[in-house]
C-alpha cells in the first residue's frame, strides 16, 4: 500500500506514519517542517525498513499539483491520502487579526480543498481512501476558536460534497470529528472530558480504511456530547462559558 500523510511532522500524523510503516506501507511524508519529517523518515526506514519519501509543502502555498506529480512519480499509485494537518491560534476569537484569519483558513481549509481537488482525478480512476480530520469544536459556534471551528465545519461540508460527487465505488471517503487528543493543540488546556492518545486515533483511522464514513466521532463518547450540545436550547447554550 502507498500512503501520503499531509501533516506528518508531529502528533496524529507522526503516529499514523509509525503505524502505517509498521504495517509495511510505502509513505510520502508531507510537512513544512522539513527537519522533523527528515528525522521521522530516517527512524521509520531504520525501524521498519520502509520506503519513506519526503515532500516539503507549506500549506500557505496552493501549489498542490506538485505533490500529485511527485507522489505518482515516486509511488506510481497512491492508495491513501491522509489530510491530517491543522493549526489553531491562541488568539482565535471574533476580531482577531487578518493574518491569523488567513493562516487558519489556509492551513485548515483552503489547502485541504486544493489537495483534494488535485488528487481527485487519480482516486476517481484508481480508487483508494481520502481521509479528513475535523474537530468537535465545529459542533456548535462559540466565542473561542471561532476561525478554526468555521474552517473545520466548512471542511466537513466539503467532504460531504466529495462523497456525493464520487462515482467510483472503490474510492472511499472518511471524515472524523476528533475530540480531545494529546497533541500540542490541546497542550496545557484544562479538559472537562478525557483526552486520548494519538496512537488511539491513528489506530481507529487505519481501522476505518475502505469504509465510507461521513462524520465519525473519535473517541465515540463525543457523539453523545455532540448530540446534547446540538439539542441544547439557545437560552441555555448562550450561558455556557467554554
Amino acid at each position, binding site marked *: 500500500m502507498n500512503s501520503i500523510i499531509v501533516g506528518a*511532522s*508531529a*502528533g496524529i500524523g*507522526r503516529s499514523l506514519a509509525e503505524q502505517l510503516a509498521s504495517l509495511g506501507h510505502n509513505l510520502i511524508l508531507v510537512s513544512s*517542517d522539513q*527537519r*522533523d519529517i527528515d*528525522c*521521522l523518515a*530516517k*527512524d521509520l526506514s*531504520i*525501524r521498519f525498513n520502509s520506503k519513506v519519501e519526503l515532500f516539503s509543502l507549506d500549506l500557505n502555498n496552493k501549489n498542490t499539483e506538485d505533490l500529485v506529480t511527485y507522489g505518482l512519480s515516486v509511488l506510481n499509485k497512491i492508495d491513501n491520502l491522509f489530510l491530517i494537518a491543522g*493549526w489553531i*491560534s*491562541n488568539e482565535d476569537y471574533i476580531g482577531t487579526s487578518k493574518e491569523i484569519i488567513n*493562516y487558519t483558513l489556509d492551513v485548515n481549509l483552503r489547502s485541504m480543498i486544493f489537495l483534494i481537488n488535485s488528487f481527485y482525478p487519480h482516486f476517481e480512476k484508481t480508487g483508494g481512501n481520502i481521509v479528513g480530520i475535523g474537530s468537535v469544536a465545529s459542533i456548535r459556534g462559540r466565542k473561542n476558536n471561532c476561525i478554526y471551528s468555521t474552517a473545520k465545519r466548512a471542511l466537513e461540508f466539503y467532504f460531504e460534497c466529495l462523497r456525493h460527487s464520487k462515482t467510483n465505488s472503490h474510492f472511499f471517503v472518511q471524515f472524523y470529528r476528533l475530540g480531545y487528543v494529546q*497533541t*500540542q493543540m490541546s*497542550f*496545557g488546556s484544562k479538559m472537562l472530558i478525557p483526552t486520548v492518545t494519538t496512537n488511539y486515533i491513528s489506530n481507529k483511522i487505519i481501522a476505518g480504511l475502505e469504509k465510507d464514513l461521513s462524520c465519525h466521532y473519535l473517541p465515540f463518547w463525543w457523539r453523545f456530547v455532540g448530540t446534547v450540545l446540538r439539542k441544547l436550547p439557545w437560552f441555555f447554550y448562550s450561558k455556557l462559558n467554554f
Partner: protein
Amino acid sequence: MNENKVALKEISSVDLQTQGKFRWSQPDRYKSLLSNNKTAIIPQGSALSYVANSFSNDSLTINMKRFDRILFFDTTQKKITVEAGITLNKLYFFLNKYNLFLPIQPGYPGITIGGCIAANIHGKNQYNEGLFENCIEEILLFHPKHGELIISKQQNQEIFDLTIGGFGLTGIIIWAKLRLSLLEENSVNITHEPVDSLYDTATKLQKLSSSYAFLYSWNDLSPNSKYKGRGFIVKGLFTNSPKNKFLLIPEKDLFYPMKFNLFTKQTISIINQIYYFLNSNKTEKVPLYEALFPFVKKRSYYSLFGKTGFWEYQVLIPHNYAEEFCDLFSKLACQNKASISLATCKIFRGSQKYLNFNGEGIVFTFDFLANPSSLELMRQLDKKLSDFNGIINLNKDSRINHETVSLIYPEFELFHKRLRQFDPQRFFQSDFSKRLKL
C-alpha cells in the same frame, strides 16, 4: 506562527524531597524546541532523577520525550545515533533484534539517553565498563547563544567535558551517537555470595571486580542487624538461555507513592531479614533485560516510603579508607538510630573530573527514611568525607549544599568557572543548580 505551549505541571524528584508545580512544555517539532531564547530553561528526560535537576521555579522545563527517534544505525560499525528523548527501554528492544546492546545502563529502563549523558551514569560494573561517557562518540548540543554544536572528544572537547555529567546545564542535547556492544548471550547467570559485614563486602568485591560482568552487593543495615551490613554479593556472568521472556513496563508514571509509609524502623528490619533469607544463597538464570534493569521488578520499593519519600546517600571512598569509613558509618548509624532501608556497594575505578561521580575506590549507597535522625547522620558523614577523600554522588543527594560540594569536589570551582565562560548568562538552570550555586 510557531508557538511553544506551556503548562503548569506537578513534578517531583524521585526521592520526593522536592516537589511542586512548575512551568513545563513538551515540544514535538524542532522549530518549537529551538525557539526559546529569552527565559531560563532546563531540559528534562523522563523526570526519573533522584534530585530536582530538571525543573525549577524560575525556569521553563523542556521535556524531550517527543524526540525519541533513531537517526542512524550501522550494525557492522556497531554505532547508533538517537535523539536524546529515547528511552533505554525502546533502544533495548530495537537493538536486541540485532544482538547488540548498550554496555552501560542504569537500573531503570524508563530513563532517557539524554538523562544518562547529563548524569554520566554508571552501570552494574563500573570497574570493567567505566561511565556512560565511554559509550558516547559525539553529541549535537543546542544552546540559544551558540546555536547547534557538534561536541566530542575531538571537536569542542571542553564543552563535551562540561556536558557529560553536566546536569543539563550546558544546553539541550538533541542527539547522541553511541557505541554499542555485541550481545553474545541473552541471559545472565546470577549467583549470590553471602558476606558478614560492610567491610567484608568491600574486600570481597575488590577481589572479584574483574571476573564478573555484573557485580554489586546488597547489605542489611537495619537496626536489628546492628548496622553491621551482612548481606550478599550479586555476581553475574553472561550465559545463553533458550527460554527468555521479556517484561513489559509502563512507559509513564513509574512510581506512585503510597498514602502511608510502609517502611518504619520496625518494618525495615523484618523486610530486610525476609529478603536476606530468600536471596542469600540464590543462584538463578535471568533474562538480560531483568539483569540490566533490576528495578523493573522492584519499582514498588519506592512507593513503600509513602509521601515523605527518602534520602539517598551515595559516596565513593578510596580503598585505603574503606575500613575506617565502614567503622565510622556503623558507629554513627548506631548513635543516630538510623533507619536504612537499602545499602549496596560497588567497585569503581577511573579518574575524577569536574562534578562527575568517578574515581578509584568503593561506592557505598544508603537509602534512609526521610526523618531528622537520617539528616543528622548524613550531616555528620559529610563533615568526615574530606578526611577520607570521599565524594558524594550529586545526582542522588537532594540536600547537599554548595559549601560541602566545593569542599569535597576538587574541580568544583573549575566547573563553575568554565560553565560561566561558556554561558555567561546561565540560560540553563534547575533547582539543583541553584542549590549548588552553579
